[in-house]
């Protein structure tokens, strides 16, 4: 692997700055260096819509089989880090129970009781911090139930996805971060292996049972389960937090959504475009190729930055504006063959708890006593979302 040329702009970008607020950095990159090697993360950041789409839809040139993938390092070889026949084989086991019609059938019955229980628990107070009392617990418990994970509690599941995410986003290869993720990964194996043994003997129709029945090794099922724990538990809760934050900071839009239930879906989709919770799709170059005038060599690691493509003014009018009337498909769930398998379920996990929250609290608003901070670039969300409804 050649050592990529580093520009002053690329060298100036730190992980801390990306995590604090990546959007001004992406804006500058799109304008000045749309394909830019950033040594702090060891990746060429690809930031324009057309290039991101091109990378995501040309797996022959930009493969998901990345040598230095922190996701593969943390979770093991999984459906997001393979292409071609292996990808199709692993994906088949998880796609069937995630088809829109299948999800429509089971999702409300799983999600609504969990959301109602968590609303009941906070409703007596004047307000609450929504990420830890509602968005994240509802997300993890709903997915745990859909997967068939039994009686694991929300705090354990939240810790699991948090630790796996620490490893999955560890592009900087910090050994301390990796140790946290590895310990939790071993803990998950110890907890889940007996369950997998049982599901192998007695399939129960859960997603895990589907995955075991498909043509995959036990190691692959373990890795894909951890991918689902990470993506499926963390991200719908983060997405719900982002959607609530978007609406609460745009009171006119919130009033329109309250008056017209048909606007809930567009309000969610637009929030995911505007502040995409998952930052990138990571790829590795397989043969010499030129992208936006930059020569890339085999072995170069690429981050197709979904969150930036979704803000590209070349593709979107006034891309930085949250506009519920906007139309067009965004890239927040990824593009191409690796598009999120759980997207239909995730959309239910965001919409139903959001509708129930708005219905329950007609006076819902941000708590003026707390500043909302968002954090992360690979995985971005509000760190806390204090609201009041009294």
């Amino acid at each position, binding site marked *: 692997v050649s050592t990529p040329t580093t520009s002053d702009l690329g060298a100036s970008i730190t992980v801390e700055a990306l995590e604090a607020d990546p959007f001004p950095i992406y804006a500058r990159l799109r304008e000045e260096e749309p394909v830019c090697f950033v040594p702090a993360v060891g990746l060429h950041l690809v930031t324009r819509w057309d290039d991101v789409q091109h990378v995501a839809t040309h797996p022959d040139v930009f493969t998901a089989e990345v040598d230095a993938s922190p996701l593969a390092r943390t979770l093991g070889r999984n459906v997001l880090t393979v292409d071609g026949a292996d990808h199709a084989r692993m994906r088949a086991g998880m796609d069937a129970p995630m088809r829109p019609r299948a999800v429509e059938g089971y999702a409300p019955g799983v999600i609504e009781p969990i959301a109602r229980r968590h609303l009941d628990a906070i409703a007596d107070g004047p307000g609450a911090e929504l990420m830890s009392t509602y968005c994240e617990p509802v997300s993890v418990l709903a997915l745990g139930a859909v997967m068939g994970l039994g009686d694991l509690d929300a705090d354990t599941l939240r810790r699991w996805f948090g630790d796996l995410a620490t490893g999955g986003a560890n592009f900087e290869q910090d050994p301390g971060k990796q140790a946290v993720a590895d310990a939790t990964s071993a803990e998950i194996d110890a907890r889940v292996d007996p369950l997998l043994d049982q599901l192998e003997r007695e399939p129960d129709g859960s997603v895990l049972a589907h995955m075991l029945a498909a043509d995959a090794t036990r190691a692959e099922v373990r890795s894909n389960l951890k991918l689902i724990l990470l993506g499926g538990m963390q991200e719908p809760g983060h997405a719900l937090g982002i959607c609530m934050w978007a609406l609460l900071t745009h009171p006119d839009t919130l009033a329109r959504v309250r008056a017209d239930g048909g606007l809930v879906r567009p309000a969610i989709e637009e929030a995911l475009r505007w502040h995409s919770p998952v930052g990138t799709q990571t790829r590795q170059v397989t043969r010499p190729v030129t992208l936006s005038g930059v020569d890339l060599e085999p072995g170069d690691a690429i981050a197709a930055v979904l969150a930036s493509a979704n803000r590209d003014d070349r593709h979107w009018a006034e891309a930085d504006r949250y506009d519920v009337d906007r139309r*067009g498909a965004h890239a927040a769930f990824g593009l191409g063959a690796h598009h999120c398998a759980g997207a239909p379920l995730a959309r239910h996990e965001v919409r139903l708890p959001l509708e129930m929250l708005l219905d329950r609290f007609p006076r819902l608003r941000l708590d003026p006593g707390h500043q909302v901070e968002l954090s992360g670039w690979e995985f971005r969300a509000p760190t806390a979302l204090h609201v009041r409804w009294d």
Partner: protein
Amino acid sequence: MEEWTDVCADADLAEGAMVVVGDADDPVAVARAGGRLYACDDTCTHEECPLSDGMLTDGEIECPCHGSVFDLRTGEALTGPALESVRTYRVRVEDGRVEVLIDR
């Protein structure tokens, strides 16, 4: 001269139903949704699943495989993973028969 393709009897296309016509390699879905007739490519632009197996709502069709949503009036991809539009076609009722103009 415009060549309209016969679809079915008007009475046989119920509200919320779809019929597939045309070339087997590039079929067209004809749908009745919200009391209106629509026609668009049956093949999703993401991974080529048949849209006619998906769900119809008022003015939109959702792919059964990965949930891409297309506007039946314009063919525009409203929700990914599909990004490319599907083509749409004119539909009419003539002498009690539904007909589509596949003019590509």
